[in-house]
């Protein structure tokens, strides 16, 4: 290795280092302005096409969004969810060929109470986001985390689908027809039970009028929330709790406002980190649902993740090149050390490994694709006891073996 007259006899392939002065690999005319992955250099126009096409292809390949459906977009203000919002705008705009056809709504959950922000900071962040939302002209809902205390217990149950889930053998077209049929039936016959259910749910929660912030929260609510989070000792568990509460709030809003689908803005990198940290937390049984494209565990509301094919690098480049405004809002783990929580640790591990082995994130992503995504059968009568109360996934602990599995063969000394 260190010999002076060592000869490299042509074994090492000479691979040209990717240079940006190359031509775009797609149109081969314009000069490339950025490089994605190992050697794909794109020019501006081709990159935009590539980005938009990926979004449409992701929605088109997994045909779960029916035309005319109400879809709730969960936006946190970060680059990925704002990018998703702009993609939806692109897709719905009039001049797009084969434009998407669904009715979007936006939800933002203000969790400043849990991360210890002051009211002024929270109001500022909300105002910034509101200006972004207003520019889109979609209905939006701003929900505060403090409203968790007034959620009904129906969020802990998987509802039966309002539209009966068609057999998997049916083609997409038939499923769409079925969907439109059931909606017409609901509107015509004004299905009393469904309406009653909806209004009942609405009256239980605090009144939400579309396009307005909910009634101002009192300091007592904020204190109650802070007490709840202070009672959880480790940051890992706090982040887990925050995630669960957010899911419940989104689910509740979707149910009361009549949304049947929720779009989350998780990018490929974020999902790889989530997969690894879920394995470390012991959530192997529900991995497929937590990181797959569609999450059908709630029955009537399906969660989809259309951004799961984008790495955070691509999203960052796109936002920068096309001036998509994103708002940074500090969360629970901002400025936390590497070892403060399992999620933080996993994030730093994956990003460091990615620099040495550039295929890490995509390999983890492909592993998650091969995992089982089928949801448990819908006969809730027999299966009620077999679902976890908080995350509504099938239980992976058996009562009989509880000493063996739960404590994993730890003797109680």
């Amino acid at each position: 290795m260190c010999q002076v007259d060592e000869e490299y006899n042509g074994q090492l392939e000479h691979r040209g280092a990717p240079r940006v002065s190359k031509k775009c690999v797609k149109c081969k005319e314009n000069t490339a302005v950025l490089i994605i992955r190992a050697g794909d250099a794109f020019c501006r126009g081709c990159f935009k096409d590539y980005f938009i096409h990926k979004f449409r292809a992701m929605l088109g390949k997994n045909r779960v969004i029916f035309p005319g459906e109400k879809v709730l977009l969960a936006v946190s203000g970060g680059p990925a969810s704002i990018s998703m919002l702009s993609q939806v705008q692109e897709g719905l705009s009039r001049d797009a060929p084969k434009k998407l056809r669904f009715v979007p709504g936006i939800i933002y959950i203000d969790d400043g109470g849990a991360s210890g922000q002051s009211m002024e900071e929270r109001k500022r962040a909300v105002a910034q986001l509101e200006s972004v939302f207003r520019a889109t002209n979609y209905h939006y809902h701003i929900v505060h985390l403090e409203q968790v205390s007034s959620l009904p217990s129906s969020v802990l149950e998987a509802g039966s689908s309002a539209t009966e889930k068609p057999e998997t053998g049916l083609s997409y077209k038939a499923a769409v027809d079925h969907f439109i049929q059931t909606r017409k039936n609901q509107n015509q016959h004004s299905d009393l039970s469904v309406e009653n259910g909806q209004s009942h749910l609405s009256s239980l929660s605090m009144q939400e009028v579309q396009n307005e912030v909910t009634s101002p929260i009192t300091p007592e609510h904020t204190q109650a929330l802070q007490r709840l989070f202070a009672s959880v000792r480790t940051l890992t568990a706090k982040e887990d709790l925050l995630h669960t509460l957010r899911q419940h709030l989104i689910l509740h809003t979707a149910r009361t406002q009549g949304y049947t689908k929720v779009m989350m803005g998780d990018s490929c990198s974020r999902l790889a980190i989530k997969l690894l940290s879920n394995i470390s937390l012991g959530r192997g049984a529900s991995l497929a649902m937590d990181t797959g494209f569609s999450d059908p565990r709630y029955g009537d509301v399906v969660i989809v993740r259309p951004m799961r094919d984008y790495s955070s690098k691509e999203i960052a480049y796109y936002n920068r090149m096309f001036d998509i405004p994103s708002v940074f809002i500090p969360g629970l783990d901002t400025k936390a050390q590497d070892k403060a929580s399992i999620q933080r640790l996993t994030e730093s591990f994956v990003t460091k490994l990615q620099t040495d082995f550039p295929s890490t994130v995509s390999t983890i992503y492909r592993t998650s694709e091969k995992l089982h995504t089928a949801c448990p059968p819908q006969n809730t009568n027999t299966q009620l006891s077999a679902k976890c109360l908080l995350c509504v996934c099938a239980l992976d602990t058996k009562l009989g073996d509880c000493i063996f599995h739960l404590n994993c063969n730890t003797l109680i000394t």
Partner: protein
Amino acid sequence: MPVLCSSCAEKRAVLKRPKTAHSLCKECFFWAFEEEVHQTIVSAQLFKHGETVGIGASGGKDSTVLAHVMKVLNERYNYGLKLLLLSVDEGITGYRDDSLETVKRNQQQYELPLKIVSYEELYGWTMDAIVKQVGLKNNCTFCGVFRRQALDRGAMMLKVDKICTGHNADDVAETVLMNVLRGDIARLRRCTAISTASEGEGVVPRCKPLKYAYEKEIVLYAYFKKLDYFSTECIYSPNAYRGHARTFLKDLEAVRPSAIMDVIHSGENLSVREGVKMPVQGTCGRCGYISSQALCKSCVLLEGLNRGLPRLGIGKHHRLHEKILSQQPLTQVEERKLKAVNF
């Protein structure tokens, strides 16, 4: 105020258990550790009465503790097993020759018969020679594949019914994480099983009685029992990919000690979608060993080494199996790709 043992509340506590953070005295800790291994063996029904069991002994802490605990439990609970020590000599100077001395001492201390098989006599190659050809990366593949076959051959020579290895909870958790990082779905499904499949010719089933024992507890047990073991790590290990998974796991344990068990639990509950291509078990065309391809991995690796094409076993090479089986020469391009990269 001295801290009392939380189990017997009589003696002073001398250690804090890594798994549960209980403070325990020596005897209670020994009892807890041995009982847990006993529970693992009994509930997974690892052994039958009257079987001959080979203990894979390397002289390191895991196999020394395994040999000791197996001997203790065999007598205490009357398993009725006949125990032997089985050791593999990979030919790594400065590491394996020293640890083999430890195994020979173990043989006298535990009064168990010992058999040593070496790579030199089985394959004609030592690990040192292999590393000289292959380089510092990817040599763990050779060592691991050859060792597996060596253990099986040694077991067949001794006519044992089962082999047990000293894999601990940390090892299994690292393997789960490594398989996720490398995208190896087939191994991901199998790696958390406590014992391998037991049907087929020439296959000796293998089990891991220490699967739920933390590595730290094994070290504590060996230290307090003053067991004789060899504690240096393999000289080629710093460059292995497993090192990354290991560092991550150690950090996880520092944040939350139960994380190791949680990773194993997640691994056990992973389910793979139907329609994903899985390897099917068959036999090797050349040596008759079990294999999922036309040629078993060790035949491929050996062929590569003997022909001076060390990269033959690394990466995808299924198309070349037929060529090797029929002794055809490889083309220029293929040869060039398979030669070692000299640094």
